């Protein structure tokens, strides 16, 4: 906005306040929100309150007599139980590895897909397919037809590379269980990252890129100085959403390795599942759940500060 300097007195600053919203108007605005809000509160908060309630009880389905109050005993167990701690650490490891690698791959593939080439649409279709495949199906297909030591496709494809070293018929789900599960997680979520980053690339203004090219900037420098900063909110969003979904991965763990060998691939969701299904320990699982929730809130608050821009919600309003 151009500022015109004149010799005249500057006009007194007039505060432009937004049109005051009457009480009736306020309620009219709230009304459409209420059904969804009430619905979500009932369906998500009631189970949480009940979980909280049971976390202070000793409640085993296998023992008759129902639930007995036992104070913070369940919580003490949670914090002293090494199984919980190792499941927690493993969850963080699996999620972080999968998210970071999926995003790196996502950026790389998005860059490839950003150029025009013959059959670009087909390639994009091929790449988004893993995201569409039912995770249970993906887990079972990877576990059997792909990774089986006796007849798996992967071993067949890697034969020429392994035989010189005397390595063949690798039992991926025994010797490299964690890696195998993480690979499947990455396989399924890279398309998600790719699509988000691709949208970011395609929304990049062309004039700045052209100016850089005219100035003689190389491809890598252009990427580092112009493209990457532009992509930052997209990458942050991908990491945030991807983490939310990847930390809850259950299908791959349950169907590929059943948490094993031993507990090698047990993440938090699977650990909780075992507590309920194998130990019938509702009270213990509830306490574990509450601790998980608190940890998630802490991480989310931390993430919010880091990714503040993602939550710089654009304000609406007419």
């Amino acid at each position: 906005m151009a500022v015109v300097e004149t010799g005249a007195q500057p006009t007194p600053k007039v505060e432009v306040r937004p049109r005051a919203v009457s009480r009736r108007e306020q309620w009219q605005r709230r009304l459409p929100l209420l059904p969804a809000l009430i619905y979500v509160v009932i369906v998500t908060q009631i189970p949480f309150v009940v979980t909280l309630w049971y976390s202070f009880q000793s409640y085993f389905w296998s023992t008759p007599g129902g639930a007995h109050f036992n104070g913070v005993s369940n919580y003490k167990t949670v914090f002293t139980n090494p199984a919980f701690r190792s499941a927690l650490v493993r969850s963080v490891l699996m999620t972080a590895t999968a998210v970071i690698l999926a995003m790196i791959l996502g950026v790389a593939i998005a860059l490839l897909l950003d150029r025009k080439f013959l059959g670009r649409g087909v390639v994009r279709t091929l790449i988004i397919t893993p995201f569409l495949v039912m995770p249970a199906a993906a887990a079972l297909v990877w576990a059997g037809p792909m990774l089986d030591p006796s007849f798996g496709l992967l071993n067949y494809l890697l034969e020429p590379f392994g035989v010189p070293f005397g390595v063949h018929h690798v039992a991926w789900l025994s010797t490299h269980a964690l890696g195998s599960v993480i690979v499947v997680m990455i396989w399924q979520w890279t398309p998600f990252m790719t699509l988000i980053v691709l949208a970011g690339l395609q929304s990049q203004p062309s004039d700045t890129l052209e100016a850089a090219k005219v100035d003689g900037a190389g491809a890598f420098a252009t990427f580092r100085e112009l493209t990457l900063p532009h992509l930052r909110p997209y990458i942050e969003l991908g990491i945030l959403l991807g983490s939310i979904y990847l930390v809850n991965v259950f299908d791959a763990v349950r169907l590929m390795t059943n948490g094993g060998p031993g507990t090698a691939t047990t993440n938090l969701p699977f650990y909780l599942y075992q507590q309920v299904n194998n130990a019938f320990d509702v009270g213990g699982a509830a306490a574990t759940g509450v601790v998980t929730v608190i940890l998630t809130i802490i991480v989310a608050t931390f993430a919010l500060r880091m990714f503040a821009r993602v939550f710089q919600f654009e304000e609406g309003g007419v």
Partner: protein
Amino acid sequence: MTATALRGDPAGRPPGTALRPGPRRFREMPGQVGWAVLAWVVGLAFFLPVLWMLLTAFKPESAAETWPPKFVFSPTLSEFRLVFSGMGPFLTHSVIATVGSTILVLVLGVPAAYALSVHPVKHWRDGLFFFISTKMLPIVAAIGPLYVIALHVHLLDSIWLLIILYTAMNLPLAIWMIRSFMLEVPKELLEAARLDGAGRIREITGVILPIVSPGLVSTALICVIFAWNELFLAINLTVTNAATMPMFLISSVPQEGLYIAHLSAAATVASVPVILVGWIAQRSLVRGLSMGAIK
């Protein structure tokens, strides 16, 4: 952040560049071909497991667990026939749960998104954050109590339970996406409608809905994907009366005996609906996942 002009070839050459002989396309071709080949390799690599699943689904069991793996064999539909004969109720339950929850998500989500975007409520930021926060808390944490609650309200092993839970599962993302699509509606149009004397209802149906309907399609698409594929809640809260396709898939893995071809056929049938829908509505899906989520 609004999407600016799509990057493409500029209308005219930027000032200062000398005209070089030959169309730009051909001059850059060797480099182009290299990247194109790489893109194809990556695409095929990602698709390979799906391709192998499809291929194996047409094998007789005897040809499915061989070494080396067979690429040439006489295809048969016998495994598919077995799958189709067993999947009836599972398919029905999946369709009902998916369609039902998606409809409910739209019915609840559109007004909510409207209330958080066009004429925002006073604490719209808090509202939006509350919805998103429900997704941050792992559902696994509450599965025990969920089971007990479902037991007490007699909703265990009921398709209604799945519809209710899937709706709650998808609402936060749906509201976020629909809201960002609504923010794209030009304010001038809304002003014009208001000046014409349009009330809230007419504003929504006459102005907003027509413009955001592609966004609604992509939102519905994503809800369908997540609801159809959902396993954890289904496996813990249903037995027979509401068992869905993911559970049918698991049941195709027997305790003993050959099963790889049968599994591949079941996996194919279970995944194909969502894969086809995703392929056909690809553009919508891309738009929804990326643009709809950035606002």
